[in-house]
């Protein structure tokens, strides 16, 4: 007897989705399937697997049970049809581009995105013959005008890094859909706990899973989630709707219906690029996801408390209080040099190039993450020379404020 369906809540899915008891052993924790390959039951089964007519694992570059558990959990939390995990967030992003675009095609991206994304698109992806136009996120007319007949993707971030600007995903989705292209959203800073772009009209979601999803700074990973609702057979995506020379002349949209994009992203792009996630990393990410809801609540409440504290300090020029999430910037009076003195005086906050750790992190973007950008690009990305970026962790807020207060006093006295 089958019970009626239940729509399980976010915290329940963060603990259970993708991880029923291990079918082989009953192990309640999903095992780390540390294997490169999988034995075929027969030559017939092997042939069916290679032809994508049956389900199962062949080789861990393409799929792995531990990684698949993480992928399914991410798809569930984002409200997507499925997901493909990658070795990093940038690998997920690159493979997303390769799944929809080829040389001669074009992308549109908002300006206030992660510096690594700007470099990836404007240098490496450009060299592959795929050009990107960067447009200010608040200029919807410019955005609409930037989309041409060769455009294959509109790419935005839920929360700009480090500007903190929150995207109006519904507006971006209508602009993309009017033009017959998908909207892709980097949801790293918000996580599906704070924002689910697919519910707001996005078609693709990418994450650096290294950040809040992992939550403990233990591994590098990325993931790409797809909604399953974008009409890939609309004539603009021959890579999906015409016979594929990379896969037995299969027409992905015809054979896989709503799964066309996900099947191509895995069976062709992940297979050929080889940027797969390691099983151990997937296991750490699954563990991190179990507490995502609890952690995000604390990240957000600590961030609000600390933003309010900074507002009161005389050494602070300005604070971009976060609208969403726990990563935000503030400016130290006295410019670049004062900002450096401040960072060097911190005791508890970790000075490093990452965000979304359970520990509180701090960085000076102008001299580190965004040092590749010139002054003009820096301003376009919402970064000033005196900007300090905080990723507020899970410590006692009083301890974090104690450390910030001491360092601010030090920064004020040259």
């Amino acid at each position: 007897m089958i019970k009626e369906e239940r729509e399980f809540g976010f915290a329940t899915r963060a603990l259970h989705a993708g991880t029923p008891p291990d079918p082989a052993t009953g192990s309640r924790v999903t095992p780390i399937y540390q294997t490169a390959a999988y034995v075929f039951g027969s030559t017939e089964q092997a042939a069916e697997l290679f032809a994508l007519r049956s389900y199962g694992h062949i080789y861990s570059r393409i799929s792995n049970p531990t990684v698949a558990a993480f992928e399914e959990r991410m798809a569930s939390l984002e409200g997507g049809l499925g997901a493909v995990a990658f070795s990093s967030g940038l690998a997920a992003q690159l493979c997303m581009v390769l799944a929809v675009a080829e040389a001669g095609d074009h992308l549109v991206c908002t300006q206030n995105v992660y510096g690594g994304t700007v470099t990836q698109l404007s240098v490496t992806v450009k060299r592959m013959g795929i050009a990107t136009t960067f447009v200010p996120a608040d200029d919807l007319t410019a955005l609409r005008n930037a989309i041409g007949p060769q455009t294959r993707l509109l790419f935005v971030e839920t929360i700009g890094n480090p500007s903190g600007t929150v995207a109006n995903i519904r507006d971006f989705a209508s602009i993309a859909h009017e033009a017959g292209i998908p909207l892709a959203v980097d949801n790293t800073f918000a996580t599906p706990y704070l924002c689910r772009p697919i519910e707001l009209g996005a078609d693709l979601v990418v994450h650096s899973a290294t950040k809040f999803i992992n939550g403990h700074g233990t591994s590098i990973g990325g993931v790409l989630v797809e909604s399953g609702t974008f009409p890939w057979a609309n004539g603009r995506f021959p890579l999906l709707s015409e016979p594929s020379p990379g896969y037995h002349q299969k027409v992905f949209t015809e054979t896989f219906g709503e799964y066309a994009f996900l099947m191509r992203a895995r069976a062709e792009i992940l297979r050929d690029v080889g940027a797969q996630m390691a099983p151990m990393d997937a296991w750490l990410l699954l563990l991190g996801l179990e507490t995502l809801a609890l952690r995000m609540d604390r990240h957000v409440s600590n961030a609000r408390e600390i933003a309010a504290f900074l507002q009161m300090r005389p050494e602070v020029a300005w604070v971009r209080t976060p609208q969403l999430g726990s990563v935000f910037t503030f400016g130290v009076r006295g410019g670049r040099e004062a900002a450096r003195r401040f960072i060097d005086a911190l005791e508890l906050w970790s000075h490093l190039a990452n965000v979304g750790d359970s520990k509180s992190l701090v960085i000076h973007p102008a001299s580190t993450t965004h040092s590749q950008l010139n002054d003009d690009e820096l301003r376009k990305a919402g970064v000033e020379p005196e900007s300090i970026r905080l990723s507020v962790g899970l410590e006692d807020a009083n301890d974090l404020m104690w450390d910030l207060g001491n360092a601010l006093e030090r920064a004020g006295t040259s």
Partner: protein
Amino acid sequence: MILATPAARRRLLERATTIAMIGASPNSLRPSYTVFSYLRRQPEYTVTPINPTIEQIDGVEAFPSLAAYAQERGAPDLVDVFRKPSEVVAVVSDAISAGAKAIWFQYGVINDEAIALADRAGLEIVVDRCMKVEHARFRGGLSTAGLNSGVITSRWKSVPRL
């Protein structure tokens, strides 16, 4: 009645044992071949191609029509349809005459008149879904590919027999 929920589709898939597949093709590039090849390997199903242009697929005997099938094998539990939407009203009439209890329209096979006809005859109906995908959703196949099965459980499904 259109089966709109995964649980309803699961019940249908668990109840059915005989499947007549309209428009099954021996061409391995066709989606219908992929679904046929998958379903016929599931031990719980007997899958039969219905296609007047072929004798068999992979050694499985084909019937030229649902009527011919029903005459020899009786009513099929489920009729799985791979045909142009414009041709499926006739398929539904044949399915009703053959005594089928359920009809499954594959991806893109959408025809409101055919759906209404099947509904009036009391058939269970699935529209714009793939039988292979829905079967794999509940058997763990989708999960091997990182696809969202919607299945949440703490029961061990493959408990060894005592």
